[in-house]
């Protein structure tokens, strides 16, 4: 089995190749070539900041981070992060007619039912095809087995329009070619059901990169279009998408598409007149493939908090030639509401220190929000991976001297955290309660992904998510001495 060691990037490349045939569009044809050359996601080179598309910003109270400051602490050690499979927990909700079939181990299945922090055992739109000893020992042909499992699944769930075969650590290590399997299965299931593949393996993807890989797998499927349009990329809750659509409409931006769409049968088109606006900071590969299809990215801070939302809409407005007057008129009420709602939390949070563990790649936009709109002091901002190009506008807004860290050695990071004793730690569920038991207030980070937090109307909610643990500690400290195990 030693021969199962794999070349990095190999599987995603083969997937992209397979898919391009289906898309059949000139620009798309070139995407797989670049995909095949791509270095693993963790190692993309640092691109120089592009200044041109940053929207004009009002004066802020903190000196901005200079580019020379952006030398993150890079660590190698135990990474206390989810793998990309976890994204299925929200992706299956964003695409209700899609189904995610992980090809992996019992561990993958167990992760999926544990990761969301809930086990509710409704019949979900995801499942795991668990590889067994007889598959590995060659007593069963794995492709036959996969065909059998998919057949049973589609019989049971005929309403599925899009089936993702999702690669895992074991499937990658044994070099099971899910791209080829998807193509083979699609011959039987089309036109009723499209079959695509992507990898959510922890070997290649960290947490939100699973969404990136999933959306990237959709790109070759997109039709070509020469019409000018705005394409917003990133899975968003329905309510956010509706708000964004309303604001774009008010700005007079006509054609607006979202990726992923609510229905797998209604994929947006892409082409040279497509302007790409990222709603999430973790879509490196998706953006790359869309750009390869001709889309041009609108660089902007991300729509978290009033400032980020204003910057994001302003960048789109500028790209679509919206007059500043109109832009200001459209955005003003939302700005005012967001400022009012956030302002109330600011009273609780201003001046307090915060430490963000690496988790979702949302850390840098959130740190910018916490620092600039809530007045918090940033002790350390960890991120599993720093995409300098997509985050250029965010980095420029961080205060000078902010300590960034990329990658992780969790034990050493905990040492730093304990030493700093911040007022608030943003971290994953594996760390939160142990830190609480040490008397350190925490905000568990996965809720930030599961809750609607984008845009003006959710700016107050986002602030509230950070404020609530601190409020709670203050409430409880009045009556109860800090919890400590007591002898029986």
């Amino acid at each position, binding site marked *: 089995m030693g021969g199962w060691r794999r070349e990095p990037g190999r599987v995603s490349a083969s997937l992209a190749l397979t898919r391009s045939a289906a898309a059949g569009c000139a620009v798309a044809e070139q995407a797989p070539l670049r995909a095949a050359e791509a270095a693993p996601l963790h190692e993309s080179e640092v691109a120089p900041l592009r200044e041109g598309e940053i929207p004009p910003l009002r004066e802020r109270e903190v000196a901005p981070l200079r580019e020379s400051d952006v030398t993150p602490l890079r660590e190698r050690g135990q990474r206390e992060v989810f793998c990309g499979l976890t994204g299925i927990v929200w992706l299956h909700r964003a695409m209700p007619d899609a189904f995610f079939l992980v090809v992996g181990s019992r561990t993958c299945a167990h992760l999926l039912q544990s990761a969301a922090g809930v086990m509710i055992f409704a019949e979900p739109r995801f499942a795991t095809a668990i590889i067994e000893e007889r598959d590995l020992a060659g007593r069963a042909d794995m492709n036959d087995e996969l065909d059998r499992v998919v057949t049973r699944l589609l019989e049971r769930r005929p309403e599925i329009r899009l089936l993702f075969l999702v690669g895992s650590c074991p499937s990658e290590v044994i070099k099971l070619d899910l791209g080829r399997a998807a193509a083979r299965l699609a011959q039987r299931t089309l036109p009723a059901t499209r079959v695509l593949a992507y990898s959510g393996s922890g070997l290649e993807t960290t947490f939100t990169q699973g969404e990136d890989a999933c959306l990237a797998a959709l790109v070759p499927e997109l039709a070509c279009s020469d019409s000018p349009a705005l394409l917003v990329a990133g899975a968003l809750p329905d309510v956010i998408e509706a708000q964004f659509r309303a604001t774009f409409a008010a700005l007079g931006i006509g054609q607006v598409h979202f990726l992923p769409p609510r229905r797998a049968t209604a994929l947006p088109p892409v082409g040279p007149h497509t302007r790409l606006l990222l709603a999430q900071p973790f879509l490196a590969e998706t953006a790359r493939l869309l750009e390869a299809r001709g889309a041009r990215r609108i660089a902007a801070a991300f729509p978290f908090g009033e400032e980020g939302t204003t910057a994001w809409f302003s960048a789109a407005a500028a790209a679509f030639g919206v007059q500043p007057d109109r832009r200001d008129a459209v955005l003003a009420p939302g700005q005012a509401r*967001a400022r009012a709602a956030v302002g109330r939390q600011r009273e609780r949070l201003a001046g307090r220190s915060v430490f963000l563990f690496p988790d979702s790649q949302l850390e840098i936009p959130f740190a910018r929000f916490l620092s600039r709109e809530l007045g918090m002091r940033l002790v350390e901002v960890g991120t599993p991976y720093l995409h300098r190009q997509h985050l250029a506008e965010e980095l420029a807004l961080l205060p000078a001297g902010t300590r960034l860290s990329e990658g992780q050695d969790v034990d050493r990071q905990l040492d730093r955290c304990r030493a700093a004793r911040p007022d608030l730690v943003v971290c994953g569920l594996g760390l939160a309660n142990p830190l609480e038991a040490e008397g350190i207030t925490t905000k568990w980070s996965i809720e930030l992904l599961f809750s609607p937090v984008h845009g003006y109307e959710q700016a107050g909610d986002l602030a509230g998510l950070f404020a609530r643990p601190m409020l*709670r500690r203050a409430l409880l400290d009045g009556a109860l001495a800090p919890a400590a195990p007591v002898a029986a």
Partner: protein
Amino acid sequence: MQLTLWTYEGPTHVGAMRVAAAMDGVHYVLHAPQGDTYADLLFTMIERADRRPPVTYTTFAARDLGGDTAALFKTAVRDAYERFRPEVMLVGASCTGELIQDDPGGLARALGLPIPVIALDLPSYQRKENWAAAETFYALVRGLAVEAPRDEHGPSCNILGPTALGFRHRDDVREVRGLLERLGVRVNVVAPLGATPAALARLGEARFNVVLYPEIAGTAARYLQKRFGQPSTRTVPIGVAATRAFVDEVLALAGIAPDAAEPACNLPWYSRSVDATYLTGKRVLVFGDATHAIAAARVAASELGFDVVGLGSYSREFGRELREAALGYGLEALISDDSLEVEQRIAELRPDLVLGTQMERHVAKRLGIPCAVISAPVHVQDFPARYSPQMGFEGANVLFDSWVHPLMMGLEEHLLGMFREDDEFSPDAPASHLGAEAHSRSLEVAGVDAAAWAPEAERELRRVPVFVRGRARRNTEAYARDRGRALITVETLYEAKAHHAR
């Protein structure tokens, strides 16, 4: 006359029965018409008592009213004495018995029984169950307690207040007794629950009294203070903080220093655990007897991080304490024994959680609001097989589980809904752990006096998760009403949201 659908307290003679049935060696002869014997089933069915309450009813009928009901009563007393041979006889009348004015006390005393006969004067048309239980216990204590040497075997106390049909009294006594013994305080007498008349005679041997239920033991404790100079505890040990304060109070009264580790309790850690963050600021309405309501509000606010938005009680006798406690939350206490009024308040306030009696549980169920029961009147559900105190450290654990579970079920419904529907399935399905009527009712109540919703605003509202949609609707309507807006638009919805952000 008072129109009453359901009552929080029974009649006075039921209060007396709760004391008599709690004790051994006491018999109660009640001058009452046929039918009043229904009260027996409260004990045998709700509490699953394995013996009949020690009560004899005269069960006079219409035909007796023309004859000699006094003779009937005397016969009943004599027969009851012969049959049951109690150490003490209580005599009194139910509401109907009171009207025929036969003077049970005088009649019974005239029989010259060789045991103490205590006459209970419990005005049925003025007073209610808890007052009568207190009065009965006081009458027994006054009639039976005698001077006695103090603290012969180290610092000791009495535990006063637990009765039959009490809300978790059985387990509270066990918990508090354990706590006291761990502190090195000897328990002299527990009364009335499990006490004999002979035990009541020994009450004076203790250094102080632990008053578990002021509604029932307050009168007797004040008498014991006056007669024997025994001080009483003032803290009811419900919740971790109150239990700690109670321990301090006990140590001071006993004049001893703490000598044992505090027992383990999960509430503080569970309440700090990050999965409890979502409890913060949940709006809770509390209603029950005074002791449990005041304590529950305190625990809710300071140990679970809830926001107390309503506090009330049917214990009119404790109006001052209730008003004082409510003020601490910026509230006016609702002091009422009209269950319709309480229902109305719940419907108006639409809290996230109701901590109430069985009646509020049913009201909350109809309105689709999670609820936990904290107080009598008791139901068979309130006598679980397992150890379920409300007091002490284990009591605090019980409170945590009992109050959080309904909210957790609500959250589960929310998540289930997320997984299940996603737009295409009915997004308005009510939470399945709540009343089937929950949804329609909540819309209906919310719709009263409300501004009209523009179609796109209504659509936007339907995007709000079902779990918080009701509140979003109410907040928006209140916002629109306060500003005199006739039409609710999407902007109004978000203005209201920003306005209500906390």
